[in-house]
């Protein structure tokens, strides 16, 4: 493997390798922080008993150990993959004193392969979907399920790409009526009615639909 190729691979994979280790480090640091928080749980310890913090502390220690093990796994799998994919380069690297660099590249390559990719994700659509769901949850509480659900069904479908307005209007209205009948009329789930005048509007809708 030439010097240039090694450098090129290194520059590509080292970033991913660092990113993978960073991800694990976040979990590790979070576990350490929560372990410290767990120390303050037991305000009135009962002598001779393990206390309420014991179990979560065990889990957090296990999480820390798992993070360390995962780091080892990344390195080990990388070495294996390097041996398999670049046998000649690996040999040259050993000769040229580049073993550590090649091992690092290999480890990163394996991790990069294992890690999921965001390259094929439509981030705009993803963000819109998440915002739509958050907005839906917020609106249900504020304006009641009946109105919020009709708005959500229409908005979600429209934002994700369905632009047949007539169909969407029918779906949002009939879908909401169907859900109201199923859950309010038959299963007696007291879905949120909203605050202020929205509660009155919801009650009017219920009366019109004979489900109140």
């Amino acid at each position, binding site marked *: 493997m030439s010097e240039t190729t090694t450098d090129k691979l290194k520059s590509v994979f080292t970033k991913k390798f660092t990113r993978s280790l960073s991800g694990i480090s976040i979990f590790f640091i979070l576990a350490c922080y929560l372990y410290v928080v767990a120390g303050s749980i037991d305000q009135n310890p009962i002598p001779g008993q393990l206390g*309420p913090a014991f179990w979560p502390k065990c*889990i957090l220690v296990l999480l820390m150990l798992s993070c360390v093990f995962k780091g*080892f796994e990344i390195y080990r799998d990388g070495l294996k993959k390097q041996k398999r994919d670049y046998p000649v380069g690996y040999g040259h690297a050993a000769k040229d004193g580049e073993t550590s660099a090649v091992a690092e590249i290999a480890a990163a390559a394996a991790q990069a392969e294992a890690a*999921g990719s965001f390259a094929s994700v439509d981030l705009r659509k993803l963000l819109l979907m998440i915002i739509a769901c958050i907005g839906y949850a917020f609106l249900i509480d504020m304006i009641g399920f009946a109105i919020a659900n009709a708005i959500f*069904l229409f908005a979600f479908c429209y934002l994700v790409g369905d632009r047949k307005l007539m169909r969407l209007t029918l779906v949002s209205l009939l879908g909401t009526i169907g*859900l109201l009948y199923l859950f309010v009329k038959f299963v007696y789930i007291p879905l949120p009615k909203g605050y202020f005048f929205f509660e009155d509007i919801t009650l009017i809708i219920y009366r019109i639909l004979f489900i109140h």
Partner: protein
Amino acid sequence: MDQLHYIWLGLSNSCEPFNILMIITGLIVGVLAGALPGITMLNAIVLVLPFTYLMDIVPSLLLMSGIYCGGVFGGSITGILFNIPGDPMNVPTTWEGYKLNKKGQCAKALGMAIMCSALGGFISALLMTAFSQPFAKFALTFSSAEYFAVVFLGLASVVVIGTRSFGSAMISMCIGLFIATVGIDEIYSQVRFTFGWSALDTGINFVVVLIGIFALGEIFDQLSEKNRDEMDQYKVRPKTHLPRLHELWELRKSIGRGLGIGIAMGALPGTGATVTSFISYGVEKQVSKTPELFGTGHWEGLVASETSINASTGGAMMHLFALGIPGSGATAVMMGAFLLHGIQPGPMLFTKTPEAVYTIFMGFTICNLIMIPSGLICAKFFSELMKVPEIILNASIIAFCVIGAFALRNDMNDVWFMVASGVMGYFMRRLSLPIPPMILGLVLGPMAERFFMTTIISSNNDFTIFLRRPLCAVLILIGIALLLMPFIRDYLKSRKENAQMQGV
């Protein structure tokens, strides 16, 4: 002879038209409730409880048994069709079933799931009828140490569930175990990790997380993909094909193992169908000649977990009747029905009202047979849902999920937790952190903590208690062996590779 007499009497009683009607009604309600995300089989049993006030105890229990049988199977339908397990117990079925669906084998997967569920349930019901009385004596010797060992075994199965990386699986499981500790703990009633937010005091309901991670996470994942084959999945018009005898015969070993594990685990009170399905799937993967195919749409995984789920129902019912202790959430509600009618379930039932007991037993057996046509009808109904355009279907599923999360405790905080879980599920998918170990940790975590702490407190902090009780020690050693299995496999594999290289 007495028992045979009562079995015959029970059979003729359970075939009365009203009793059969109750079984069919229960099955349909159960399958639908199990299949709809957010509405659990347990919810359905609770909802019919008021209707049983006006009935006798036998049709009441038959109605509930129908819901129980149908409910444990129902979650597999949406699992196979939409990758949304109706209940945690249907998660292993979903792993294989949905992949089979993607491969165009949806009809056969649904048929196989129905047949295996019915088979597992039918045989376990027969065994329940035969062994209820002798079982009562054995299970009474169990302590919390044995219960902990069983849950530990369930958690250890994470190593075989944990896709390619043991480390990732462990991290994921620990996250699940940790989330389960949030809120007021059961033993000391102290608040943990709420950071002053009162909404967290009652903890994070695992059903909420489950709905979010599986349903929302999957929808985000599907719809945000740039190069997805749009609508392809929903162009399929699947039917349900029941498997032929030779197809079942080819999978006889997996079915047998699922049946054995289901019956054995069901016989342990408190373990339930969820632990059973995970263990069954894990064991099947371990003994399989093609473990690498698990998770890609493998029949062995599907039939083993599906058989084991329904095979565990007989055991859970057995506890209720033989011990008066509910073996699962569903049987706990059934116990409520007994008490509503002024009857105390337990060993005395067999002497006081043997006719009613055996009528319910035989009704439960028949229920598993009727489940085949009921399952076919309901699966057909859900297959029709696939004709709905993808975006509209997904929007409707989100609405169902929101209602499901809210209805659990009539609490909007659960809706927020569900949305947050959905986002977390999406990122876990994208970052290759396996989701099943997290769910396993979340579901089994509280049980593990309860049994562990109870054992330790009652033994004055003596940790050796787990190794001094023979059954407990055996179960824990099996769990440790499961945990070590990947390392042993790796070691043997590398030794083989080294030997081959030296040979070359």
